[in-house]
């Protein structure tokens, strides 16, 4: 125990003594860890944010398709889809973009009618307000209803950005460059920052007017299934999707597909940075190896001397392991801390734009950062292990030769 403490103390001394090597390794490894962790935290944050945004999403989204592109879908599909066994509720949605001053917002018209008419019979399909409300929990004011003409409920991020409150009248520029005025009746604060940051809600008829959508069309149909269980939902949604897909000119997106598409997008973008990070990491390993083998004559001499003074090969390795753990750990910690500061405090400049997509203009959207234990541990592992590898092997090679040879070789 005392010996291990002595060797640890000696390792600290080595880290202080070989200043150039320490500095080079700390800087290069720190940069590598910082770049990796900042990308990973942001990527994890985006994936988590994406998952949250889909938490209350419909099990299936049905869109119209024309010449291979998304188009408005006819409302006559509502009744046929609603009658497919397993479907609990079909909701219509009209959405698009609008401008409030210089701020681009997502305008969503939600279906607040809880019934459909099929074959002249009115069928109750569920409580639509209750079904949709959890996605947009109100912080103040009230939610929309079917009669809420010229009324909107806005996300908390939008309210903060515009300085709006319940009772404020907002002028929203339509895609046709027409200004319409809406009374803010409520402010919601969703679990998903994406929703709260740039979304305003209005009832379906208001949205139809806003986007000039014909009476028999909507942007998409949201289909909710009866199943409560996630695994059953996936299999049921696939069965129902097949049935719906027989309907002409429409396509079906399952929640699972949307989630996977999001994960794929962000992981591919972070993958690009990972390649850069691997290059840096290889450079670090080469630097460490070079420092120990080529530049490390001093170190070689030291190994010979320590062995002459009674240190065994395992003692030498132990010293180098401590050194590597200290350097790698310190560089990892500095890198992770830098990553956190870069993402959370500085808002990940450039990186955020790349990860979100250059074309996306999110107003005041807080950078989604998720610091998982897994990512932290992985960052430490990849900063410490290459250094251990690059340091221990040359040290072991030096330590296995006779001390006299090691000292003479270093001096030559």
């Amino acid at each position, binding site marked *: 125990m005392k010996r291990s403490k002595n060797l640890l103390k000696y390792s600290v001394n080595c880290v202080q003594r070989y200043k150039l090597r320490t500095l080079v390794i700390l800087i290069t490894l720190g940069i590598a860890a910082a770049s990796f962790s900042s990308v990973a935290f942001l990527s994890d944050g985006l994936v988590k944010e994406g998952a949250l945004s889909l938490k209350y999403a419909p099990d299936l989204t049905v869109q119209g398709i024309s010449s291979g592109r998304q188009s408005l879908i006819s409302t006559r599909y509502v009744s046929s889809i609603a009658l497919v066994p397993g479907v609990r509720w079909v909701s219509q949605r009209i959405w698009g973009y609008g401008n409030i001053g210089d701020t681009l917002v997502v305008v969503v018209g939600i279906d607040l009618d809880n019934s459909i008419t099929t074959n002249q019979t009115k069928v109750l399909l569920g409580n639509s307000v209750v079904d949709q409300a959890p996605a947009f929990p109100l912080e103040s004011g009230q939610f929309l209803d079917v009669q809420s003409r010229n009324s909107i409920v806005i996300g908390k991020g939008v309210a903060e950005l515009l300085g709006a409150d319940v009772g404020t009248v907002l002028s929203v520029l339509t895609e046709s460059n027409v200004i319409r005025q809406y009374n803010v009746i409520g402010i919601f604060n969703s679990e998903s920052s994406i929703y709260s940051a740039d979304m305003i809600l209005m009832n379906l008829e208001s949205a139809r007017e806003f986007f000039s959508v014909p009476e028999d069309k909507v942007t998409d149909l949201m289909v909710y299934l009866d199943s409560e269980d996630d695994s059953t939902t996936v299999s049921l949604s696939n069965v129902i999707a097949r049935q719906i897909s027989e309907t002409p000119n429409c396509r079906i997106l399952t929640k699972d597909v949307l989630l996977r598409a999001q994960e794929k997008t962000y992981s591919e973008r972070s993958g690009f940075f990972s390649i850069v990070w691997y290059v840096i990491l290889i450079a670090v390993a080469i630097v460490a190896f070079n420092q120990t083998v080529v530049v490390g004559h001093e170190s070689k001499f030291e190994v010979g001397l320590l062995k002459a003074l009674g240190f065994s*090969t395992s003692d030498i390795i132990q010293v180098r392991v401590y050194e590597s753990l200290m350097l790698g750990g310190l560089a990892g910690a500095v890198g992770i801390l830098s990553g956190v500061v870069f993402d959370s405090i500085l808002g990940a400049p450039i990186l955020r734009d790349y990860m979100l997509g250059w074309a996306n203009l999110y107003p005041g959207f807080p950078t989604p950062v998720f610091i998982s234990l897994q990512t932290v541990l992985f960052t430490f592992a990849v900063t410490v292990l290459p250094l251990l590898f690059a340091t221990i092997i040359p040290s072991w090679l030096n330590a296995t030769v006779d001390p*006299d040879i090691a*000292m003479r070789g270093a001096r030559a």
Partner: protein
Amino acid sequence: MIETVNLTKIYNRGKKHQVEAVTDANITAESGAITIFVGPSGCGKTTLMSMIGQLLTPTRGEVLIDKENLTSYSDGSKAVFRRKNIGFVFQHINLLPNLNALENVLTPLLCHDVDPEKYKDNAVSLLSQLGLSDRAYFKVEQLSGGQQQRVAVARALVTEPKIIVADEPLTFVDDASAKTITDFFEQIKDEGKTVLISTHATNLAKLGDKTYVINCGNVVDSY
């Protein structure tokens, strides 16, 4: 007692520039005595000392210390033997830079299961005996060559080994330091330690209870 039997070292064996540094050396060093090795530069003194001190593996032959054949020891066992029994003083001094004199003296204790702090007084006492009481906290770079070699002597003794192997200990030291070191070797011999010294210096050679003359890797005389 230290004995060597046909101790031989060949560098670059089988290669173009093969060098037979020591050939069939048979020497005996009595316990509690000073044994001197003299000879011209490059005659194989350092190689012989290194083999006796288990710093260099012989090509053939044996090293026996108190009848124990160390040649067959593993690398780890040799390290343990050195740790417990041998203190080295090197020709090139070999102190660790950026450490002060006291830290250098305490370095061999780091691989022992002891608290070096408890040996501080002993280390300071050794430095005082070598005339360095006011230099204990000086960095190596702040010490003269003679002072550095005296620190190295103190380092060799801090673990209280029974054997001291000193290779050309006076090469880079001034006369005053040489006298201090010479007197010190005499003192530790009187304490019962076995001292092996290789040297050119006549004042050191005079200390020897036994002297071996080396030339071209061979022991050519002893007295």
